């Protein structure tokens, strides 16, 4: 028996919704599986007194965003290279934007 076009569409949408539910289940199981890793990092941050993630290690002001100041992007000379794209991804910390 051949499905009508509307039935085919409803089956496709149903399949996509099922995949969305599967993604939600995957998220909850994966979060549980990755919890030890998060706890380990949390413990390291606490014991080593760390302040930042190692997402951008190419410059001090991107490596330690929370400790950055207003002028490090310019380094020590006006022609010092800006580290694109990290410098563009990382906006100034909230406390530096306050007047």
């Amino acid at each position: 028996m051949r499905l009508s076009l509307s039935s085919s569409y409803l089956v496709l949408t149903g399949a996509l919704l099922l995949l969305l539910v599967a993604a939600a289940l995957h998220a909850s199981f994966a979060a549980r599986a990755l919890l030890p890793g998060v706890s380990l990092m949390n413990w390291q941050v606490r014991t080593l007194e760390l302040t930042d993630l190692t997402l951008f290690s190419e410059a001090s002001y991107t490596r330690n965003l929370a400790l950055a100041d207003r002028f490090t992007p310019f380094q020590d000379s006006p022609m010092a290279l800006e580290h694109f794209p990290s410098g563009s991804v990382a906006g100034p910390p909230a406390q530096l934007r306050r007047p």
Partner: protein
Amino acid sequence: MRNLLERQRHILDFTIASLLRRKWKNGSLLAVYTLLVFLLSSILLFSHALKTEANAVLQGTPEIIVQRSLTGRYQPVPLSYAEKIAEIRGIHSVRPRLWGYYYDANFLANYTLLVPREGAPQPGFIDIGSGISRIRDTHPGDVIGFTGHDGKPRSFTIRKVLPAGSELVSADLILISESDYRDFSGLPADQATDLVITVRNPREFSTVAEKVVRLLPDSRPIVRDEILRTYDAVFGWRSGLVIVVFGAVALAFVIFAWDKATGLSAEERREIGILKAVGWETADVLHLKFWEGVVVSLTAFLAGYLLAYAHVFLGGSFLFAPVLKGWSVLYPEFRLVPSLDCGELAAIFFLTVVPYTATTIVPSWRAATIDPDAVMR
């Protein structure tokens, strides 16, 4: 009720047949729409997951850090500052923190040297992050050499490699003893990189920070909340790349919806005219157009969002990785904790499905309310 459902199913049948008659045009429309939803969802899922991860991981970051600046540059803090700060009421403890950067010219990578408060390696030994172990192919027991502040080489034996599961905070770390660090960096015995303060009452963080500045005007206290807010700001809606990608996608979507809203093609108008001529009512035509909008936008929304989920949480955000890596030689390998945020899902739905469906119906309503004869001519 049964009749109503049957009627809608027949209209849906007709809608899909009509879309399939122009399969190339509608297929490319669906592909572009899915791509827009994919990009928007990817950036939102990625930034949300990173913010959540940063928040979870950095909960234990120091309560208050005190830096010192001189002539506009950061300077080491004299240990005498710690004694002065310790006298402020409400402070539980003040500890010096020893850390700094080391640029490895051979591998073009920056490392972070740090003296741990507890469990520091013995002099002559270091612990390294798994990122350093990976790029230098070094393992416990190997000897590694660095050039000190005086230009003389120093060698250290690797005691252990920090766990790979913690690369997001430790990929570039080198843990070293205090005596080795001072000898290597040239930092005098009476100075520290910065100070870490613990406060008895967490509600007094900002008050204590103000007192520190009043006592030592050349100091800069950074409170834990500010550290946590930094990552909200970096990966928030208003931050650099997120806003650029989001703006570009939003603009593309506006153009896309505007094209639909500004009118129907002659062929579509003729189709509406014929349907009216053979007895379809205006409401039926609007139902037809409603289903047309729903079929395209709902399919694109679901497919785009699922592809984005797979890209960010199963594919390791491979499209964003080169952008994030930038100049970094040493980049952490990490798996983001997946999260499906219902609020964000609803926001993407209302940003994409609702406007598109509305812009499909409005021009059709105008065409469906005029005389079929005039439309067909």
